[in-house]
C-alpha cells in the first residue's frame, strides 16, 4: 500500500513538473522557418479620390480631368474602375458611351439624363524628368454597375515602386518596365440643353489589387546581337534554422557584381521576388554601354501537390539603343532587376500553404558590349 502511494506521488510530481517546469520558453522560441516567406505583402498606393472638371458649353460639350495612381507597394498592382455613380441631386445618372447619343441635339430632358465618361489615355511619368509622356489608347467608357453595358475599366498594371531604383538614364526602360505611377485622362461629354449653370458630382471608384507580372508587362525587346560573355549561377537555398542562403558564383571574371535576395512570399498566390543587383567596378569603362539579359529557372521541389510555379524571365537592357548613347555605370547607382516567382497555391487547404518551401533556382545572365 505504501508502495502504491509512493507511485501515485511520483506520478503527481511528474504532472507538476510537466505543467510548471516544461520548458515552454524554449519550445516557444520563434522557429526560423528558414524561408523569408513571412510576411504579408502590403498594398500601398496613392490614388485620386476627388478631381474637378469644368465644361464651358460656349466652346465645347466635353471636359477633361485626371485620375492619378502611384504604387508604393513592393509588388505589382493592377487597378480598375469598378463603378460610377451620380452623387449630387439633379446630376445626369444614365451613363452612356461617347458616341451613343447625338449630344448636339439632346433635348432638355435627355440632357438632364445622359452623360458619358471615358478613359481616353494613360500617361506615365518618365523616370528621369517626371515629364508626362502620352500613350495612345482606345477610349474606354465607364458604365455604372446596373448598366447593360457594364464592364470594369482596366487601368493596367503599375510596377512596384521598388523596381529599378536608380534607373534614371535609360529610356529603354520606359517601354520595357511599366512605371509605378500613372495618370489616366478622362473625358466627360454632356448635352447642351442645360437650364442653368450647375455643379454636379460623381463618384468613380478605383479598386486596386496585387496583380500583373513582370512577364506580362514586359515588351519584347530584342536581344539580337547579344553575346554571352559570362554567366552567373544564383542559388537560393532556404534552410530550416537559417536565413535564406543566396550564393552567387561568377563563372568568369566580371566587371559587374551580382547579388541576389529572396524577398517575400505570401500565403495565398505566393510571390517571391529576387532582386539581382548590378554594380560596376570597372573604373575605366565609364563610357561603355551594356546590354544585360537575365533569365532564371526555378525548381520548387517541396511544394505541396497541385501547386504551380510560374517562371518569369526578365530581360533588361542597359545601354545604347533607342537613342541612348551612354549609360554611366560608375556613378554609384545600384541597378535592380526584379525577378518574380509566382506560386499558385490556391486550393481548399489554406493551412497547407504555410509549409516551408524550398526553392532552388539557377539564374544566368548575359552581357554584351554594344560599343562605346
Amino acid at each position, binding site marked *: 500500500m505504501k508502495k502504491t502511494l509512493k507511485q501515485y506521488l511520483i506520478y503527481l510530481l511528474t504532472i507538476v513538473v510537466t505543467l510548471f517546469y*516544461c520548458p515552454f520558453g524554449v519550445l516557444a522560441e520563434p522557429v526560423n522557418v528558414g524561408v523569408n516567406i513571412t*510576411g504579408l505583402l502590403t498594398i500601398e498606393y496613392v*490614388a485620386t479620390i476627388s478631381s474637378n472638371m469644368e465644361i464651358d458649353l460656349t466652346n465645347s460639350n466635353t471636359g477633361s480631368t485626371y485620375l492619378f495612381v502611384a504604387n508604393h507597394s513592393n509588388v505589382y498592382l493592377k487597378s480598375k474602375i469598378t463603378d460610377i455613380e451620380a452623387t449630387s441631386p439633379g446630376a445626369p445618372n444614365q451613363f452612356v458611351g461617347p458616341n451613343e447619343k447625338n449630344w448636339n441635339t439632346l433635348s432638355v430632358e435627355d440632357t438632364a439624363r445622359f452623360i458619358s465618361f471615358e478613359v481616353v489615355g494613360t500617361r506615365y511619368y518618365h523616370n528621369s524628368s517626371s515629364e508626362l509622356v502620352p500613350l495612345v489608347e482606345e477610349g474606354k467608357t465607364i458604365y455604372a454597375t446596373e448598366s447593360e453595358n457594364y464592364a470594369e475599366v482596366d487601368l493596367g498594371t503599375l510596377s512596384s515602386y521598388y523596381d529599378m531604383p536608380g534607373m534614371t538614364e535609360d529610356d529603354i526602360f520606359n517601354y520595357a518596365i511599366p512605371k509605378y505611377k500613372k495618370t489616366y485622362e478622362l473625358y466627360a461629354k454632356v448635352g447642351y440643353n442645360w437650364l442653368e449653370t450647375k455643379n454636379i458630382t460623381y*463618384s468613380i471608384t478605383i479598386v486596386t489589387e496585387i496583380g500583373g507580372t513582370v512577364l506580362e508587362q514586359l515588351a519584347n525587346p530584342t536581344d539580337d546581337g547579344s553575346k554571352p560573355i559570362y554567366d552567373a549561377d544564383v542559388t537560393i537555398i532556404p534552410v530550416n534554422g537559417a536565413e535564406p542562403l543566396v550564393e552567387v558564383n561568377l563563372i568568369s571574371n566580371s566587371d559587374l557584381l551580382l547579388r541576389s535576395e529572396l524577398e517575400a512570399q505570401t500565403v495565398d498566390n505566393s510571390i517571391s521576388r529576387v532582386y539581382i543587383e548590378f554594380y560596376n567596378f570597372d573604373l575605366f569603362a565609364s563610357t561603355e554601354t551594356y546590354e544585360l539579359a537575365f533569365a532564371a529557372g526555378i525548381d520548387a521541389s517541396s511544394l505541396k501537390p497541385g501547386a504551380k510555379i510560374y517562371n518569369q524571365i526578365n530581360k533588361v537592357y542597359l545601354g545604347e539603343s533607342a537613342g541612348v548613347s551612354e549609360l554611366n555605370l560608375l556613378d554609384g547607382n545600384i541597378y535592380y532587376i526584379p525577378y518574380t516567382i509566382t506560386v499558385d497555391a490556391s486550393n481548399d487547404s489554406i493551412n497547407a500553404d504555410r509549409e516551408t518551401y524550398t526553392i532552388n533556382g539557377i539564374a544566368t545572365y548575359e552581357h554584351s558590349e554594344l560599343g562605346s
Partner: protein
Amino acid sequence: MKKSIGITIIKLLSFTAVTAGVVIVGVNVIVNYENKKNSIGQNELLEEIEVSDGQLAVKINSVLPFKNSYAYAQANIENINNNLYDMIIKIYDEDNKLLYTSPLIKPGENIKELKLDQPLKKGLHSAIAYFEGYSGSKYIGKTGTRIKIIVEN
C-alpha cells in the same frame, strides 16, 4: 485493477498536459512567423510619399489572417502623415456585405490590428477594403483595394 486505472488516468493527464503545451507553442510559432516583415532592401529604399490635394495614400495588408471569426488580424492600415484627409475604412465581402467599419483615423494614425464586425465562415474569402476620405465631416471620395481574408477556424 483500480490502481492500474488510476495510473492510466494520471498518465493520460500527463500526456494531455504536454500536448497542450505543444499546441500553445504551435500557435506561437505561427504568430511569430506572420509577424516577421518582408522588408529586405525595402527600408533603405523608402522615400517620403507625396500626396496632393484630392489624393489619398492608403496602406493595408493584402491578406488578413484571422485565427477565428472573432479574433484580431494584422492589418497594418495607415493614414500617413502626408495625407490631407481623415479616413474611414470599410471592408466588404464579395456579396457586398459590410464586414468591418473602422473608426475615423487622422493622418499619422494607424490601425495595426482589426476584428471583424460580422463573423465569417472558415476559409479563404475575397473582400474589398474601401478607404473613404473626409475633410472634417465632408466626404471627399474613396478608393478600394482587393484583399484576401483567411479565417482559420
